[in-house]
């Protein structure tokens, strides 16, 4: 309890106290900022020193490559539609990798999340185990699994799909279990009282509550997975990334192909971004009547 009988501090005291407090805060803030700036500067210098070309040199050349590509694409503009048609199957493959891995990842993510949420898990003792599993799945970068699987399974879309699916399962498992925690457990209790099995309790009691949120997160993940599958193509899995790597290794004279691939990738990402944004908005806020 505060001592109410003590004499009130004078205004001068309060002011002094306040000033001292502010000064201390400022000092700490200043030191923190200085350390931070020093870290950034040191980091930048280290990165610059360990890079093949320096920042100062490269900075003036940033737009050299894009402008070369653009110039060649404009020069051969007539062939652009042909290239777009030619590379379209590769784009479809990339999209398929992303979609299939999102679906598979979402299924496993749902399972992981249900097994790792208190009140829903059939084996409460194993909740930490399933949490760690999804943490580990999330922590492994796709490229690690993809490269190892390419060695075993040979090149192609399947290694990329499996790699992205594993990462997606971990990431969605975490997000889904956050959603699950906000779901009401009353339907589950009701279903338990009529003797429903665990699978029935989950499909009838939990999934309808969390469905829209799940779909919204999965859409977001799909967007991310398109980017990931394009990148994995670059290191050996199929799809548009692989075509991009080939087109680039041909070098000058074939830049129009690279331009076509850039264009396809850009348009796809923007389109999916906008579409999934719209869909997610509808899912979380309901349809705008």
């Amino acid at each position: 309890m505060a001592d109410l009988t003590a004499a009130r501090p004078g205004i001068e005291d309060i002011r002094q106290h306040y000033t001292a407090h502010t000064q201390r805060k400022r000092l700490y803030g200043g030191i923190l900022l200085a350390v931070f700036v020093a870290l950034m500067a040191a980091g930048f210098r280290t990165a610059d020193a360990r890079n093949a070309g320096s920042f100062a040199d490269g900075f003036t050349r940033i737009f050299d490559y894009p402008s070369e590509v653009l110039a060649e694409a404009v020069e051969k503009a007539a062939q652009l539609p042909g290239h777009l048609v030619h590379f379209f199957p590769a784009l479809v493959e990339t999209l398929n990798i992303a979609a299939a891995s999102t679906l598979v990842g979402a299924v496993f993510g749902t399972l992981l999340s249900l097994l790792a949420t208190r009140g829903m898990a059939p084996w409460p003792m194993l909740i930490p185990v399933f949490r760690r599993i999804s943490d580990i799945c999330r922590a492994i970068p796709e490229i690690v699994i993809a490269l190892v699987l390419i060695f075993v399974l040979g090149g192609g879309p399947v290694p990329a799909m499996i790699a992205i699916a594993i990462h997606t399962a971990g990431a969605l498992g975490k997000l889904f279990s956050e959603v699950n925690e906000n779901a009401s457990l009353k339907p589950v209790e009701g279903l338990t009282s009529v003797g429903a099995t665990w699978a029935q309790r989950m499909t009838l009691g939990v999934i309808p509550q969390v469905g829209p949120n799940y779909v919204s997160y999965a859409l977001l993940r799909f967007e991310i997975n398109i980017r990931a599958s394009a990148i994995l193509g670059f290191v050996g899995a199929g799809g548009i990334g692989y075509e991009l790597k080939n087109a680039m290794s041909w070098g000058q004279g074939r830049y129009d192909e690279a331009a076509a691939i850039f264009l396809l990738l850009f348009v796809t990402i923007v389109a999916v971004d906008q579409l999934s944004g719209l869909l997610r908005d509808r899912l979380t806020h309901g349809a705008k009547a």
Partner: protein
Amino acid sequence: MTTFDTTLTPADLKSDISRLFLKKRLMNFALPAAVLAYLAYVFVVFDMPGLWERASLDNAKTLVSDSYSYKTHVTRDNRSGEVSVAIEGERKGAYPDGMSPDWVALGETTVIDLEDGHTVTFGPEIIAYEIPGYGTVRATPSRSAGVQAELPAGDVPEWISVSKNRLAVTTEAGRLTVTRNRAEVFRYFAGWELFFFTLDSPYYGMGAGELMQRAATGEGGAIFQEFWTNKMWRHQVVAWAIAETLLMAFLGTIGAGIIALPLAFLATRNFMPLRSIRFAMRRFFDFVRGVDSLIWTVVLARAFGPGPLTGALAILVTDTGTFGKIFSEALENVDQKQIEGVASTGAKPVQRYRFGVIPQITPVLLSQLLYFLESNTRSATIIGAITGGGIGLLLTQAIITQKDWEEVAYYITLIILMVMLMDWFSGWLRRRLIKGEGGKAKRKRRRPEEGGAFLLP
């Protein structure tokens, strides 16, 4: 308010309800069916049945066994008769002349003990492998007649392959290959070989206790130096690679945050009255985000060459777009009252932003930055593999050689540990920094589409 039509007869109502139920039932069936149909399509398109044929189980076996075991080669040059011992057959792991592990007795006839009664003898002329329960396999290599093998009587078992110029015996204890030019024995051991010290180091084979003792008497620096410059595992290079990867993530994320914050103000309705600038800024963010990090990486690698700086810049550029979008959404949701309050005390515009706006968006800003720092550690690994920097490069190099799988396993372990550590660290920092403002942060995050959902690339 919804109004109900009270003139409906029960029959009408019932048919309405039945139709609704039918629709729901159909939907419940159609959705999984559509998903299944799509997966079946993917199954065909990806040529899953053909996958099994293309898959190489041998590769998988080498990969798995190599990642937790290693082999020591004992090689005899049949022309000169010299015997050399090397771990993994690499020069870096070769025993110095005249030195050998205790299961190899060098001499006129070299005796190699493979344990469990398996013994290989490299004689001056004859190479013999004594296999318990089977007998002795003898081979006489010569330049003129190839390899003459003598096997015990009976059929040749499938773990022995004999031809005119080659004899190969594979048992559980090891493997013997004899060709015209040389005879070679592999013996397998569990573990990662020479992880701490290579054979040429004076500290090779010392126990932890003895090392501690020596470290205490002033050899600590030398011991660390030997470990740090290990030629087989290159601890120094690996440590630098990890540092480079973390540096890419740190510089990229923080740099993007610093650049995106002022730009975000220009894209908001409440701070930017000029519509055209607002529009241009938003399209700029969309463009930067839409040009994938893959494209940025490729373009920037052309200008800056391979290395960590390129990776950092690629992350920086991509995330500037994402941060710009997130920050401007957060800025549009700030409370005007706080700014008015600061303005009423006579604050100048800069002070209004500093004390009226920034404190409101700090929780969103910090939590986003920290989330991205963690996820960018992963991206930096991937970008490093493309541009050539950091642990990603080491990993791809080790995989391309297709034999150093123990190094691949080591790098993968390190990468996973690194990412999990960053995950834990960013979570810890987030809780520490936003603890005081926890209530506000929670209130701000209630709408899932603004922040919450955006977080995890």
